[in-house]
């Protein structure tokens, strides 16, 4: 080792200034005596024209070559203590097919379905393939503000392997933060840890989480109130209504808006009933000589009561190009219990949708689609998708959004082969994309179901 360092030092200074140190390789004759390395076909014999080089630079390079190869070839293994044995993984990995689909999602194909894949895997007691964990954890790390749920899900789907990995990489500490969300996290933790604790509690015991929020509401700041309402979205039930009504009157703008949206998603809530009363006046079934048609009587303006119930005055937040009466109509429909229409008109969703025509059709379609998504009404979702695919163009407002959203919330069975009409030839790319998304989700969930069945 030191012989090599001596050579390097001499080489750094140059043979004009430094002398060339002797080198010794165990098992070989002294390099100084055998400047020419014997070649295999004449071992040990000095090569005929071989002579000790007079030039110290040549001598230096000769010896360096000898030592380089000797050091490389003679390298010994390092010794390390074996690493600690990790805790065993409880949950089994998903099947290869499900794993390959997760890889496709992580690489950008239907990237928005990641949450659904993870939720489905976690509820089936399966974990993500180990070799995809670095990609999964990096993805979850990047989404900080947008989707804290993704971090929790990634940590859960990653299992003990993810915790083991996170201990090696400071970028992934959120994995252990989620794993250690106990009551200390709630009392002493950061905003993210409090949120993690509350989310986990909500998943375990929705009522307990509701009590905790109700007791903490008065003292909470605006950001925390927003967080509270967001947490309530998971496992929403009529029991949450009283708390949400408090938020409607005593929250900041964002908390109020979120609370109103959640109340609208509870078809039995007082807000939903108020909305139904309004909406019934805006849509009338007209039986005339030319047949049955839907007549729209849009609201004239957004009054204070509507604003309290979460209807944005001015430009609709959902579709920026839709203002005025059409925007108001859309917002009211989006919050109206869908049962209102089947009862009011005495028809099932498909027949109501078949009445759509004229300039209001796209507004009504989108309003109902938003309501169906919020209320998770599968009957309406299926009817809306079938109408959009079979009926040519329903005239979608937000060309990309609505149908794609429906396809992502629909019962995945709708994606089974032959379960719904094929889009007609020349269908829009939006319709094609919706069909592909449905099919993707159908296979995705079938793979995971198959896992837990096997």
């Amino acid at each position: 080792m030191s012989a090599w360092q001596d050579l390097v030092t001499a080489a750094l200074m140059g043979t004009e200034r430094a002398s060339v140190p002797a080198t010794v390789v165990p098992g070989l004759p002294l390099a100084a005596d055998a400047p020419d390395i014997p070649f295999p076909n004449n071992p040990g014999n000095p090569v005929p024209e071989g002579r000790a080089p007079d030039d110290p630079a040549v001598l230096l390079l000769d010896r360096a070559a000898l030592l380089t190869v000797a050091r490389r070839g003679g390298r010994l293994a390092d010794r390390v203590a074996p690493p600690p044995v990790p805790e065993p993984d409880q949950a089994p990995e998903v099947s290869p097919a499900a794993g390959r689909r997760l890889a496709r999602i992580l690489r950008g194909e239907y990237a928005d379905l990641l949450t659904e894949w993870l939720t489905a895997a976690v509820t089936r007691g399966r974990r993500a393939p180990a070799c995809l964990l670095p990609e999964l954890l990096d993805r979850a790390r990047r989404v900080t503000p947008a989707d804290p749920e993704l971090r929790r899900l990634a940590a859960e789907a990653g299992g003990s392997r993810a915790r083991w990995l996170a201990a090696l990489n400071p970028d992934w500490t959120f994995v252990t933060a989620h794993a250690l969300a106990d009551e200390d996290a709630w009392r002493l933790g950061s905003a993210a840890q409090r949120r993690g604790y509350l989310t986990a509690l909500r998943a375990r015991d929705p009522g307990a989480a509701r009590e905790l929020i109700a007791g903490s509401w008065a003292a909470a700041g605006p950001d925390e109130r927003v967080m509270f309402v967001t947490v309530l979205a998971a496992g929403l039930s009529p029991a949450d209504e009283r708390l949400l009504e408090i938020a409607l009157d005593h929250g900041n703008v964002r908390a109020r808006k979120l609370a109103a949206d959640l109340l609208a998603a509870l078809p039995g809530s007082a807000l939903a009933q108020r909305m139904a009363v309004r909406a019934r006046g805006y849509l009338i079934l007209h039986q005339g000589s030319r047949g049955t048609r839907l007549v729209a009587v849009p609201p004239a303006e957004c009054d204070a009561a509507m604003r309290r119930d979460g209807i944005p005055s001015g430009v609709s937040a959902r579709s920026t190009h839709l203002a005025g009466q059409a925007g108001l109509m859309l917002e009211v429909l989006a919050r109206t219990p869908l049962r209102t229409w089947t009862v009011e008109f005495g028809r099932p969703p498909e027949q109501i949708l078949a009445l759509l025509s004229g300039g209001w059709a796209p507004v009504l379609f989108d309003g109902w689609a938003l309501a169906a998504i919020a209320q998770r009404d599968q009957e309406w979702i299926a009817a809306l998708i079938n109408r959009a695919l079979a009926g040519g163009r329903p005239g979608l407002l937000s060309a990309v959004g609505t149908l794609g959203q429906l396809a992502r919330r629909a019962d995945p069975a709708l994606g089974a082969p032959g379960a719904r009409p094929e889009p007609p030839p020349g269908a829009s790319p939006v319709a094609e994309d919706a069909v592909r998304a449905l099919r993707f989700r159908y296979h995705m969930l079938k793979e995971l179901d198959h896992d837990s069945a096997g």
Partner: protein
Amino acid sequence: MAERWDRDRVLALAPDAPSTRAAQSLASGRAWPAAGARSGDGARSGDGARSGDGAPGALWGECRGSAASPYRTVVDLSGPAYRCSCPSRKFPCKHALALLLLWADGSVRDDEVGPPGWAAAWLAARAGRAQAGEPGEPKDQEAAARRAGQREARVASGLAELDRWLCGQARQGLAASQRAGYRHWDDIAARMVDAQAPGLAERLRALASVPHSGDGWDGRLLEEYALLHLLAVAYRRRAELPPPLRETVRSRIGFTLRQADVLACGTPVRDHWQVLARRDLEQDRIRTRRTWLRGRKTGRDALVLSFAPAGQVLDASLAVGTDADADLVFYPGAVPLRAVVLARHDVIEGGPPGGGTIAGLLASWAAALAADPWLDTWPAVLDVIPVHAPVRAVCDADGDAVPLHPDAGRCWTLFALSGGHPVTVAGEWTPRGLWPLTAWDQAGGILGVFGAVPL
């Protein structure tokens, strides 16, 4: 029945990410009203039933796009090779990729009738070219010999100049190299290009980064200079070298052998070659793919190189994790490693390779270095646990460890796959550490769900 590829194998052919996305959205049956496949078993099984055609597997289809007439796409699966009437300059284009994806999903049926005229013509032309083989021998043997002699002379004088330059460096001292710019090495590299020694030029150009490679740069630069000096001495005295070592010296300098000559001189080695690992490199706008193989019966290691201009797709026919029943012919050399595939008989599902110990790796490396002192990359297949601290390394059951290559990145996939348990790792062993390329998870003796995981 031609074995259907899986999606990953298809997508590995995509020249870039936009092509992948475009192909995925085109891969629906509705976009391909007319598509068919021909299975390629005639050539493979040799049972006589279909040996009459002996044609390789192929796909064809017409893709409805924005243009008035559909695009016509043909894929020859044996290459794979592609032909499409679309104006895209990408290769393969999105249509060819989409057709392959559709086929991988099982949505393209075998067509008993065979390809339509427009596809059959191209496929037949390809088959004809393949049989005709490479263009003929140089006609004028004498002129060729004269040219070869001229080149030997030019290389000899180039190497003498290089050795003088190296001695000059040793005389003045290496300390100045840290302040030297790229020109310092580019100039001497350019003179090696003139001397028709491109292998040396490449090695010299790569040296420019060594003085800025952190601690120990001086030692690494001296190693490289010393090995170049050794190469110059070896070439000067090539007449005394045993023929295999002479071939090694010539190939390091940059003499290339024509593939036809390699095939003509070498003895084919037939084996079930496990495709262990693959590494792609790009330098001077040339992409190089190194594919490492190991024979299940012979235990021999082999390295198959393929090249492509930057931006083009490399040969993907040897898929990591599979076994290829093939005849390989090795290039001559003191440590015959580089090989060319002479004939491929079958592709077999590959199990994980048997991993060795670190002591075994270091012993085989020492033996190889004794025969070829310039060797700087050696195939490694190890049963090891990755460890993270104090440096990233792998250790085996005996407690022996070697570091991971400092430039190999953080290797998170390797750590994730292992989770502290032993895995089988295939990679390249170098003087600076192990560059891991593929891993197999062997918990409970069961292969990891992904089979071979490229790292």
